């Protein structure tokens, strides 16, 4: 009987073992890391907004406090996206003819709110509360980055669960004095303004503020 397979079949069979291992290994590595890619998480991707609102201009240039617009960040789970009336406190007086601000004026006239594109969007099965974090000394900048330097808004963190747990497991690495929460450029320092290590300061603040973040499932998944 003639041979069924050509001579090269054995080599092919042996190589196929390696190829399968490499393909499966590479495939799994890619699959397991998809949730960390910028492509998936949108980290450092500036979103196009109906009005190109610049935090950099309004915070660094004008000098607005975060709470001027995000009014409920200290009392509520939700920091608040300001209504168009907040914009109009100034823009009824300045830049009243600017074509870029036409959607603002139109919204003000018609009463239809502007549809901002949400940048920090947690899944609906996650319960998150801004007020407790602000009150326990987690700065805006710790999660949102240096918003005062952002011409358009982008995320600096993935908001993946591993990122939440990093801080819930070791809050001393991130906590700061309550009065410095809204400071965008804070560095660890003592009352006299001398630089100290975050480890030292964090350990003290954990005691002072009675910080004991839970990592139970039901803390966030209620």
């Amino acid at each position, binding site marked *: 009987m003639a041979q*069924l397979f050509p001579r090269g079949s054995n080599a092919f069979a042996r190589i196929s073992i390696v190829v399968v291992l490499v393909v499966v290994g590479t495939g799994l590595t890619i699959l397991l890391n998809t949730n960390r890619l910028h492509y998936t998480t949108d980290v450092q991707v500036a979103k196009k907004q109906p009005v190109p609102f610049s935090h950099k201009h309004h915070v660094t240039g004008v000098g607005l406090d975060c709470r001027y617009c995000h009014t409920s960040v200290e009392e509520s789970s939700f920091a608040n996206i300001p209504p168009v009336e907040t914009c109009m406190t100034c823009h009824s007086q300045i830049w009243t003819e600017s074509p870029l601000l036409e959607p603002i004026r139109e919204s003000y006239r018609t009463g239809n709110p502007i549809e901002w594109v949400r940048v920090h969007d947690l899944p609906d099965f996650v319960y998150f509360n801004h007020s407790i974090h602000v009150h326990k000394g987690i700065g805006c900048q710790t999660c949102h980055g240096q918003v005062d330097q952002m011409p358009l808004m982008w995320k600096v963190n993935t908001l993946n669960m591993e990122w939440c747990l990093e801080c819930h497991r070791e809050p001393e690495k991130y906590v700061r004095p309550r009065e410095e929460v809204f400071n965008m450029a804070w560095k660890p320092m003592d009352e006299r303004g001398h630089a100290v290590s975050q480890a030292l300061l964090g350990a003290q603040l954990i005691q002072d503020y009675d910080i004991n973040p839970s990592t139970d499932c039901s803390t966030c998944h209620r």
Partner: protein
Amino acid sequence: MGSPAPIKDPTMPAPVLGPGQTYTTVTQKLSAIITSRTPLGWIAAMLIAGAILQLLMLSATWLLIKGTGIWGLNIPVGWGWAIINFVWWIGIGHAGTLISAILLLMRQQWRNSINRFAEAMTIFAVMCAGMFPLLHTGRPWVAAYWLLPYPNTMSVWPQFRSPLIWDVFAVGTYFTVSLIFWYLGLIPDFATLRDKAKHKISQIIYGVLSMGWRGSAKHWFNYEMAALLLAGVSTPLVLSVHSIVSLDFSVGLIPGWHATIFPPYFVAGAVYAGFAMVLTLGLPIRYFYGLHDYITDRHLNNMGKVMLATGLIVAYGYAMEQFFAWYSASPYEGYMMQNRTFGPYSGTYWSLILCNVAIPQLLWIKQVRLSPSGLFIISMFINVGMWLERFIIVVTSLHRDFMPSSWDMYHSTPWDWGLYAGTIGFFLFMMILFIRVMPVINIFEIRQLVANKSKHAETASADD
């Protein structure tokens, strides 16, 4: 070598091979099941099994659309048919591994003609079993999150202290090792089929499957070593898998579950159920393909004895459960057992005792062990009985838990039945397909039996 009418030696067991078998007859007969024209009966069986298989498709699809609410499980009985059927199927698989691994290590020659389809049965039964926990999650496509430990962006791991995660490893290992062991044994037979096949395409398919097997001494040496090692790896699995399945229950503090006897009692039950299923499948295969020379009276007798022995261990387990309920002096254990024996599910409990304890006592009688129809009927009772056992364990312990205000009855729905019947359809479909495309009896091991027999005959005649 003359062949005078043999005088029956009462100390010698009955032969494991019918008379007059040679290498040629064995190979011809066993490969003809595959190479001959497709019998009409096979097509009919395939159609019936395929029709039942559609129930699985339907029930699973509707489940994925609507969620587990279509099943009868609800608080207080949160573990319903899904876990009952899972344990039932996993248990059935155990006979295949016992036959292929433990009996190989013990050099039991009678395993040779039943190990192949028993192993196939194991693999298909584990597949059926695996469907239930996956479907019970309601979202099987994300079940990997919950079942497998992998470096994830949630920074959490499964609860390694829970037997449920041990179960994932136990069943996963079991399936993998069983599959490899089964495939390894098939390689020399695939080579036989490659050489027997007439059509070019079947030659190539069997050629690829046989992985270049030429039957050289080196091949056989490697084969024997690999088979021995895999038998060694599989042997602890026979005991570990169902022990861990039983821990799903016994780690819980539920009366009727929290018992130290559970692991051995589950393992014995698994082997019991497995041999019943081997007979349920093997007897019809033997009948339709006329394999009486390979699955002989000796096999039937031995399988009957194994069922009798494991059945007695299971009966001992039932007795001990009753005893513990009294001896623990715990009012909850006592009430659970009283409720199980005389409560609303007492009918199920006594049916279980009938199927698993009373009727199998007929196996003490040798005529019953040698009668295919008798064995088939008893094995059917055991198949049912083992399902009832899991039903009793799951439902009677849960439906009246510690808080009387939440007591309720468990009512299965047609979708419970549909999914369960559907997996039986899947199982039969795969078995029938397997019979037609792979050697249902290990050809080369039967040839070895022929070789051993002629060697013995030579020695015997030399002694004369």
